[in-house]
Protein backbone atom coordinates (compact mmCIF):
# COMPACT_ATOMS: atom_id res chain seq x y z
CA UNK A 1 0.00 0.00 0.00
CA UNK A 2 1.37 3.43 -0.93
CA UNK A 3 1.60 5.75 2.05
CA UNK A 4 -0.08 9.10 1.81
CA UNK A 5 2.11 12.08 2.54
CA UNK A 6 1.67 13.08 6.22
CA UNK A 7 0.80 16.61 5.14
CA UNK A 8 -2.23 15.28 3.26
CA UNK A 9 -3.23 13.26 6.32
CA UNK A 10 -2.95 16.39 8.46
CA UNK A 11 -5.08 18.37 6.04
CA UNK A 12 -7.72 15.64 6.00
CA UNK A 13 -7.70 15.58 9.82
CA UNK A 14 -8.27 19.34 9.87
CA UNK A 15 -4.82 19.94 11.35
CA UNK A 16 -3.43 21.77 8.33
CA UNK A 17 -4.87 24.30 5.91
CA UNK A 18 -5.28 22.35 2.61
CA UNK A 19 -4.43 25.44 0.60
CA UNK A 20 -0.90 25.17 1.92
CA UNK A 21 -0.44 21.73 0.34
CA UNK A 22 2.07 21.57 -2.50
CA UNK A 23 0.51 21.14 -5.93
CA UNK A 24 1.64 17.54 -6.29
CA UNK A 25 -0.24 16.58 -3.10
CA UNK A 26 -3.48 18.36 -3.83
CA UNK A 27 -4.85 15.66 -6.14
CA UNK A 28 -4.79 13.03 -3.40
CA UNK A 29 -6.52 15.43 -1.01
CA UNK A 30 -9.12 16.34 -3.63
CA UNK A 31 -9.75 12.71 -4.63
CA UNK A 32 -10.43 11.64 -1.06
CA UNK A 33 -12.62 14.60 -0.13
CA UNK A 34 -14.57 14.11 -3.35
CA UNK A 35 -15.05 10.44 -2.50
CA UNK A 36 -16.36 11.35 0.93
CA UNK A 37 -18.74 13.91 -0.57
CA UNK A 38 -20.13 11.30 -2.96
CA UNK A 39 -20.70 8.91 -0.08
CA UNK A 40 -22.77 11.51 1.75
CA UNK A 41 -25.74 11.05 -0.57
CA UNK A 42 -28.79 10.79 1.69
CA UNK A 43 -30.47 7.40 1.88
CA UNK A 44 -33.63 6.89 -0.15
CA UNK A 45 -35.36 4.78 2.45
CA UNK A 46 -36.73 5.38 5.91
CA UNK A 47 -37.31 2.88 8.67
CA UNK A 48 -39.24 5.26 10.93
CA UNK A 49 -42.66 3.74 10.27
CA UNK A 50 -41.38 0.23 10.71
CA UNK A 51 -39.62 1.05 13.99
CA UNK A 52 -42.57 2.97 15.44
CA UNK A 53 -44.93 0.11 14.51
CA UNK A 54 -42.68 -2.29 16.42
CA UNK A 55 -42.50 0.05 19.40
CA UNK A 56 -46.29 0.45 19.50
CA UNK A 57 -46.65 -3.33 19.43
CA UNK A 58 -44.27 -3.48 22.36
CA UNK A 59 -46.37 -1.35 24.74
CA UNK A 60 -44.94 -1.91 28.27
CA UNK A 61 -47.66 -4.38 29.34
CA UNK A 62 -47.22 -6.54 26.31
CA UNK A 63 -43.54 -6.22 25.45
CA UNK A 64 -42.26 -9.65 24.52
CA UNK A 65 -40.36 -11.31 27.31
CA UNK A 66 -36.65 -11.84 26.88
CA UNK A 67 -36.75 -15.57 26.18
CA UNK A 68 -33.82 -17.61 27.31
CA UNK A 69 -31.20 -14.93 26.77
CA UNK A 70 -29.65 -16.05 30.05
CA UNK A 71 -31.06 -19.48 30.55
CA UNK A 72 -29.89 -22.32 28.43
CA UNK A 73 -31.89 -22.52 25.27
CA UNK A 74 -34.04 -25.65 25.73
CA UNK A 75 -34.34 -28.26 23.07
CA UNK A 76 -37.09 -30.90 23.02
CA UNK A 77 -37.53 -32.14 26.56
CA UNK A 78 -39.77 -34.53 28.42
CA UNK A 79 -41.08 -33.65 31.84
CA UNK A 80 -38.57 -34.84 34.41
CA UNK A 81 -37.61 -33.76 37.86
CA UNK A 82 -34.21 -32.14 38.27
CA UNK A 83 -31.34 -34.09 39.77
CA UNK A 84 -27.93 -33.03 40.97
CA UNK A 85 -24.62 -34.35 39.82
CA UNK A 86 -23.37 -35.27 43.30
CA UNK A 87 -24.08 -38.48 45.16
CA UNK A 88 -27.61 -39.67 44.82
CA UNK A 89 -28.67 -38.50 48.32
CA UNK A 90 -29.86 -35.17 46.96
CA UNK A 91 -33.61 -35.11 47.28
CA UNK A 92 -36.05 -35.12 50.19
CA UNK A 93 -39.83 -35.42 50.19
CA UNK A 94 -41.31 -33.19 47.57
CA UNK A 95 -43.44 -30.42 48.94
CA UNK A 96 -45.00 -27.91 46.64
CA UNK A 97 -44.67 -24.52 48.23
CA UNK A 98 -47.21 -21.69 48.18
CA UNK A 99 -44.96 -20.04 45.57
CA UNK A 100 -46.28 -22.53 42.99
CA UNK A 101 -48.55 -24.74 45.10
CA UNK A 102 -49.74 -27.79 43.19
CA UNK A 103 -48.33 -26.29 40.02
CA UNK A 104 -47.94 -28.49 36.97
CA UNK A 105 -44.79 -27.63 35.02
CA UNK A 106 -45.24 -26.50 31.44
CA UNK A 107 -43.47 -27.80 28.39
CA UNK A 108 -40.27 -25.88 29.05
CA UNK A 109 -40.29 -26.07 32.82
CA UNK A 110 -39.22 -28.58 35.39
CA UNK A 111 -39.42 -29.18 39.11
CA UNK A 112 -36.48 -28.04 41.21
CA UNK A 113 -36.16 -29.65 44.61
CA UNK A 114 -34.05 -28.20 47.37
CA UNK A 115 -32.81 -29.96 50.51
CA UNK A 116 -30.52 -28.65 53.22
CA UNK A 117 -29.44 -29.98 56.60
CA UNK A 118 -29.43 -27.07 59.02
CA UNK A 119 -30.19 -28.32 62.53
CA UNK A 120 -31.16 -25.55 64.86
CA UNK A 121 -31.95 -23.09 62.12
CA UNK A 122 -35.00 -20.89 62.51
CA UNK A 123 -35.47 -20.26 58.83
CA UNK A 124 -33.94 -21.36 55.55
CA UNK A 125 -34.75 -19.76 52.23
CA UNK A 126 -33.47 -20.17 48.69
CA UNK A 127 -32.37 -17.01 46.89
CA UNK A 128 -31.20 -17.12 43.33
CA UNK A 129 -31.39 -16.04 39.75
CA UNK A 130 -34.84 -17.62 39.32
CA UNK A 131 -36.34 -15.13 41.78
CA UNK A 132 -34.10 -12.18 40.91
CA UNK A 133 -32.21 -12.79 44.16
CA UNK A 134 -35.24 -11.60 46.13
CA UNK A 135 -35.27 -12.37 49.81
CA UNK A 136 -38.43 -13.96 51.17
CA UNK A 137 -39.60 -15.46 47.91
CA UNK A 138 -38.82 -19.15 48.47
CA UNK A 139 -38.83 -20.43 52.04
CA UNK A 140 -38.02 -24.07 52.81
CA UNK A 141 -39.89 -26.07 55.43
CA UNK A 142 -38.87 -28.38 58.23
CA UNK A 143 -42.17 -29.82 59.40
CA UNK A 144 -40.56 -32.65 61.35
CA UNK A 145 -38.16 -30.27 63.10
CA UNK A 146 -35.36 -32.69 62.34
CA UNK A 147 -33.12 -30.07 60.77
CA UNK A 148 -33.89 -31.25 57.23
CA UNK A 149 -35.25 -28.29 55.30
CA UNK A 150 -36.83 -28.94 51.94
CA UNK A 151 -38.97 -27.45 49.26
CA UNK A 152 -39.69 -27.53 45.57
CA UNK A 153 -40.64 -25.07 42.90
CA UNK A 154 -41.39 -25.11 39.21
CA UNK A 155 -38.71 -23.30 37.24
CA UNK A 156 -37.94 -22.65 33.59
CA UNK A 157 -35.63 -25.23 32.07
CA UNK A 158 -32.02 -24.18 32.04
CA UNK A 159 -29.31 -22.92 34.33
CA UNK A 160 -29.94 -21.18 37.66
CA UNK A 161 -27.55 -19.93 40.35
CA UNK A 162 -28.65 -19.86 43.96
CA UNK A 163 -27.68 -19.96 47.62
CA UNK A 164 -29.39 -20.84 50.88
CA UNK A 165 -29.87 -18.03 53.38
CA UNK A 166 -30.01 -19.42 56.91
CA UNK A 167 -31.65 -17.44 59.69
CA UNK A 168 -31.89 -14.42 57.48
CA UNK A 169 -28.20 -13.67 57.46
CA UNK A 170 -25.92 -16.60 56.68
CA UNK A 171 -25.38 -17.22 52.95
CA UNK A 172 -24.48 -20.83 52.30
CA UNK A 173 -23.83 -22.74 49.08
CA UNK A 174 -25.89 -25.91 48.73
CA UNK A 175 -23.52 -28.75 49.64
CA UNK A 176 -25.59 -31.15 47.56
CA UNK A 177 -25.66 -29.04 44.43
CA UNK A 178 -22.74 -30.78 42.75
CA UNK A 179 -22.01 -27.75 40.60
CA UNK A 180 -20.60 -24.45 41.76
CA UNK A 181 -19.42 -21.22 40.22
CA UNK A 182 -17.48 -18.32 41.70
CA UNK A 183 -19.85 -15.44 42.34
CA UNK A 184 -17.37 -12.98 40.80
CA UNK A 185 -17.37 -10.51 43.68
CA UNK A 186 -13.77 -11.14 44.60
CA UNK A 187 -14.13 -12.91 47.93
CA UNK A 188 -14.02 -16.45 46.61
CA UNK A 189 -17.65 -17.17 47.47
CA UNK A 190 -19.34 -19.77 45.32
CA UNK A 191 -22.90 -19.97 44.13
CA UNK A 192 -24.61 -23.29 43.68
CA UNK A 193 -25.56 -24.10 40.12
CA UNK A 194 -28.74 -25.88 39.18
CA UNK A 195 -29.74 -27.18 35.77
CA UNK A 196 -33.46 -27.75 35.47
CA UNK A 197 -34.59 -30.33 32.93
CA UNK A 198 -38.17 -30.15 31.75
Amino acid at each position, binding site marked *: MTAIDPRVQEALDGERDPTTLPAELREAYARLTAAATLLRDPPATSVADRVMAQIRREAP*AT*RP*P*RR*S*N*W*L*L*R*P*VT*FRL*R*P*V*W*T*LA*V*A*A*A*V*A*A*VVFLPFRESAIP*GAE*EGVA*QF*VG*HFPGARSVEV*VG*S*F*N*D*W*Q*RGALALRDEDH*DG*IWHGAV*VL*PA*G*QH*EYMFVVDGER*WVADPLAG*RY*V*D*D*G*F*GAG*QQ*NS*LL*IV*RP
Partner: protein
Amino acid sequence: MTLLLLLLLQSPHARLEGRVPAAALPPLDSLIGQAVAESLPTEPLVQKALEGGAKGIPVPRLVNGVRHGLVQLRDARAIVSRATPARASLDGDVAAVAAALARGLDPGLIERLLSADSEPPGPVLHAAADLVAHRFPADSAADLLRTAQQQGLHGTRLLDVAVAASHELQREGGRTPTEALARVRAMLPNIPVATPPHPRTVTRRAGRGS
Protein backbone atom coordinates in the same frame (compact mmCIF):
# COMPACT_ATOMS: atom_id res chain seq x y z
CA MET B 1 -43.22 -18.29 35.69
CA THR B 2 -45.60 -15.31 35.49
CA LEU B 3 -43.52 -13.49 38.11
CA LEU B 4 -40.37 -14.16 36.12
CA LEU B 5 -41.92 -12.80 32.94
CA LEU B 6 -43.15 -9.69 34.73
CA LEU B 7 -39.67 -9.14 36.13
CA LEU B 8 -38.09 -9.46 32.71
CA LEU B 9 -40.48 -6.96 31.16
CA GLN B 10 -39.11 -4.11 33.28
CA SER B 11 -36.09 -2.12 32.10
CA PRO B 12 -32.77 -3.04 33.71
CA HIS B 13 -32.59 0.31 35.48
CA ALA B 14 -36.05 -0.09 36.99
CA ARG B 15 -35.18 -3.57 38.22
CA LEU B 16 -32.03 -2.35 39.93
CA GLU B 17 -33.53 0.72 41.61
CA GLY B 18 -34.01 -0.01 45.29
CA ARG B 19 -32.19 -3.32 44.97
CA VAL B 20 -28.62 -1.99 44.76
CA PRO B 21 -27.04 0.95 46.59
CA ALA B 22 -27.84 4.25 44.90
CA ALA B 23 -24.12 4.92 44.44
CA ALA B 24 -23.85 1.81 42.30
CA LEU B 25 -26.61 2.75 39.86
CA PRO B 26 -24.66 5.10 37.55
CA PRO B 27 -21.70 2.76 36.94
CA LEU B 28 -24.05 -0.20 36.57
CA ASP B 29 -26.19 1.71 34.08
CA SER B 30 -23.04 2.52 32.16
CA LEU B 31 -21.90 -1.10 32.07
CA ILE B 32 -25.32 -2.33 30.99
CA GLY B 33 -25.42 0.45 28.41
CA GLN B 34 -22.16 -0.83 26.99
CA ALA B 35 -23.64 -4.29 26.72
CA VAL B 36 -26.66 -2.86 24.90
CA ALA B 37 -24.47 -0.93 22.51
CA GLU B 38 -22.37 -4.01 21.80
CA SER B 39 -25.48 -6.18 21.27
CA LEU B 40 -24.51 -8.38 24.19
CA PRO B 41 -27.15 -9.96 26.46
CA THR B 42 -27.89 -7.74 29.43
CA GLU B 43 -29.76 -10.18 31.68
CA PRO B 44 -26.58 -11.81 33.06
CA LEU B 45 -25.36 -8.38 34.14
CA VAL B 46 -28.68 -7.43 35.71
CA GLN B 47 -28.72 -10.74 37.59
CA LYS B 48 -25.18 -10.19 38.84
CA ALA B 49 -26.10 -6.69 40.07
CA LEU B 50 -29.23 -7.97 41.82
CA GLU B 51 -27.19 -10.75 43.40
CA GLY B 52 -24.63 -8.28 44.67
CA GLY B 53 -27.33 -6.06 46.11
CA ALA B 54 -29.01 -8.98 47.85
CA LYS B 55 -25.72 -10.17 49.33
CA GLY B 56 -24.83 -6.68 50.54
CA ILE B 57 -21.63 -6.59 48.50
CA PRO B 58 -19.80 -3.24 48.86
CA VAL B 59 -20.30 -0.95 45.87
CA PRO B 60 -16.78 -1.19 44.39
CA ARG B 61 -16.78 -4.99 44.44
CA LEU B 62 -20.35 -5.11 43.20
CA VAL B 63 -19.50 -2.92 40.23
CA ASN B 64 -16.34 -4.93 39.56
CA GLY B 65 -18.37 -8.11 39.61
CA VAL B 66 -20.69 -6.78 36.95
CA ARG B 67 -17.76 -5.41 34.96
CA HIS B 68 -16.15 -8.84 35.07
CA GLY B 69 -19.41 -10.26 33.75
CA LEU B 70 -19.31 -7.83 30.82
CA VAL B 71 -15.75 -8.87 30.01
CA GLN B 72 -16.81 -12.52 30.05
CA LEU B 73 -19.71 -11.77 27.71
CA ARG B 74 -17.33 -10.06 25.28
CA ASP B 75 -14.93 -12.99 25.45
CA ALA B 76 -17.86 -15.33 24.98
CA ARG B 77 -19.02 -13.55 21.89
CA ALA B 78 -15.54 -13.62 20.44
CA ILE B 79 -15.46 -17.38 20.96
CA VAL B 80 -18.89 -17.87 19.40
CA SER B 81 -17.93 -15.63 16.47
CA ARG B 82 -14.86 -17.73 15.76
CA ALA B 83 -16.48 -21.12 16.27
CA THR B 84 -19.98 -20.59 14.90
CA PRO B 85 -20.17 -17.17 13.20
CA ALA B 86 -23.81 -17.64 12.21
CA ARG B 87 -24.78 -17.88 15.88
CA ALA B 88 -22.73 -14.90 17.12
CA SER B 89 -25.82 -12.75 17.52
CA LEU B 90 -27.75 -15.35 19.55
CA ASP B 91 -27.96 -14.10 23.13
CA GLY B 92 -28.51 -17.61 24.45
CA ASP B 93 -25.31 -18.91 22.92
CA VAL B 94 -23.24 -15.99 24.15
CA ALA B 95 -24.69 -16.30 27.65
CA ALA B 96 -24.09 -20.07 27.70
CA VAL B 97 -20.44 -19.61 26.70
CA ALA B 98 -20.02 -16.88 29.31
CA ALA B 99 -21.43 -19.27 31.89
CA ALA B 100 -18.93 -21.92 30.80
CA LEU B 101 -16.07 -19.43 31.13
CA ALA B 102 -17.34 -18.59 34.61
CA ARG B 103 -17.14 -22.29 35.45
CA GLY B 104 -13.49 -22.22 34.50
CA LEU B 105 -13.71 -24.03 31.18
CA ASP B 106 -10.76 -23.31 28.90
CA PRO B 107 -11.66 -21.02 25.95
CA GLY B 108 -9.93 -23.31 23.49
CA LEU B 109 -11.95 -26.27 24.72
CA ILE B 110 -15.15 -24.28 24.50
CA GLU B 111 -14.37 -23.28 20.94
CA ARG B 112 -13.65 -26.89 20.06
CA LEU B 113 -16.95 -28.05 21.55
CA LEU B 114 -18.86 -25.36 19.71
CA SER B 115 -17.38 -25.68 16.28
CA ALA B 116 -18.53 -29.19 15.62
CA ASP B 117 -22.07 -28.68 16.86
CA SER B 118 -24.85 -26.49 15.58
CA GLU B 119 -27.09 -27.04 18.60
CA PRO B 120 -27.51 -24.61 21.49
CA PRO B 121 -24.22 -25.00 23.34
CA GLY B 122 -25.40 -24.90 26.96
CA PRO B 123 -25.77 -28.63 27.65
CA VAL B 124 -22.51 -29.76 26.06
CA LEU B 125 -20.57 -26.99 27.81
CA HIS B 126 -22.05 -27.84 31.20
CA ALA B 127 -21.36 -31.51 30.60
CA ALA B 128 -17.74 -30.65 29.79
CA ALA B 129 -17.47 -28.43 32.85
CA ASP B 130 -18.91 -31.21 35.00
CA LEU B 131 -16.33 -33.66 33.70
CA VAL B 132 -13.45 -31.24 34.18
CA ALA B 133 -14.70 -30.45 37.69
CA HIS B 134 -14.44 -34.18 38.41
CA ARG B 135 -10.80 -34.09 37.26
CA PHE B 136 -11.28 -35.79 33.93
CA PRO B 137 -8.71 -34.50 31.42
CA ALA B 138 -10.31 -31.79 29.33
CA ASP B 139 -9.37 -33.23 25.93
CA SER B 140 -10.59 -36.68 26.87
CA ALA B 141 -13.82 -35.18 28.16
CA ALA B 142 -14.35 -33.33 24.90
CA ASP B 143 -13.63 -36.50 22.90
CA LEU B 144 -16.18 -38.47 24.91
CA LEU B 145 -18.86 -35.82 24.46
CA ARG B 146 -18.11 -35.58 20.75
CA THR B 147 -18.49 -39.35 20.44
CA ALA B 148 -21.74 -39.21 22.39
CA GLN B 149 -23.09 -36.58 19.99
CA GLN B 150 -22.05 -38.64 17.00
CA GLN B 151 -23.99 -41.53 18.47
CA GLY B 152 -27.14 -39.47 18.74
CA LEU B 153 -27.03 -38.05 22.26
CA HIS B 154 -27.88 -34.37 22.37
CA GLY B 155 -29.05 -31.65 24.73
CA THR B 156 -29.40 -32.62 28.37
CA ARG B 157 -28.60 -36.26 27.57
CA LEU B 158 -24.99 -35.10 27.43
CA LEU B 159 -25.30 -34.20 31.10
CA ASP B 160 -26.21 -37.86 31.70
CA VAL B 161 -22.90 -38.81 30.07
CA ALA B 162 -21.08 -36.66 32.61
CA VAL B 163 -23.07 -38.18 35.48
CA ALA B 164 -22.30 -41.67 34.22
CA ALA B 165 -18.58 -40.87 34.09
CA SER B 166 -18.73 -39.48 37.61
CA HIS B 167 -20.46 -42.62 38.87
CA GLU B 168 -17.89 -44.86 37.17
CA LEU B 169 -15.14 -42.95 38.92
CA GLN B 170 -16.76 -43.57 42.29
CA ARG B 171 -17.40 -47.27 41.86
CA GLU B 172 -16.18 -49.53 44.60
CA GLY B 173 -12.59 -50.53 43.94
CA GLY B 174 -11.90 -47.26 42.24
CA ARG B 175 -11.31 -46.49 38.63
CA THR B 176 -8.88 -44.14 37.00
CA PRO B 177 -10.36 -41.35 34.92
CA THR B 178 -9.18 -43.11 31.78
CA GLU B 179 -10.92 -46.34 32.82
CA ALA B 180 -14.07 -44.50 33.77
CA LEU B 181 -14.26 -42.70 30.43
CA ALA B 182 -13.58 -45.94 28.56
CA ARG B 183 -16.42 -47.64 30.43
CA VAL B 184 -18.82 -44.84 29.55
CA ARG B 185 -17.66 -44.81 25.93
CA ALA B 186 -18.42 -48.53 25.75
CA MET B 187 -21.94 -47.89 27.06
CA LEU B 188 -22.78 -45.31 24.40
CA PRO B 189 -25.42 -44.57 23.32
CA ASN B 190 -27.22 -46.42 26.13
CA ILE B 191 -26.32 -44.07 28.94
CA PRO B 192 -28.89 -44.24 31.75
CA VAL B 193 -30.89 -41.12 32.40
CA ALA B 194 -29.79 -39.74 35.75
CA THR B 195 -32.68 -39.71 38.22
CA PRO B 196 -32.75 -38.75 41.88
CA PRO B 197 -33.46 -41.43 44.49
CA HIS B 198 -36.93 -41.69 45.92
CA PRO B 199 -37.44 -38.83 48.37
CA ARG B 200 -38.39 -41.15 51.21
CA THR B 201 -35.03 -42.92 50.93
CA VAL B 202 -33.15 -39.69 51.33
CA THR B 203 -35.26 -38.64 54.28
CA ARG B 204 -34.43 -41.86 56.07
CA ARG B 205 -30.69 -41.52 55.40
CA ALA B 206 -30.69 -37.91 56.46
CA GLY B 207 -32.54 -38.86 59.63
CA ARG B 208 -29.76 -41.24 60.77
CA GLY B 209 -27.85 -38.58 62.55
CA SER B 210 -26.09 -37.21 59.45
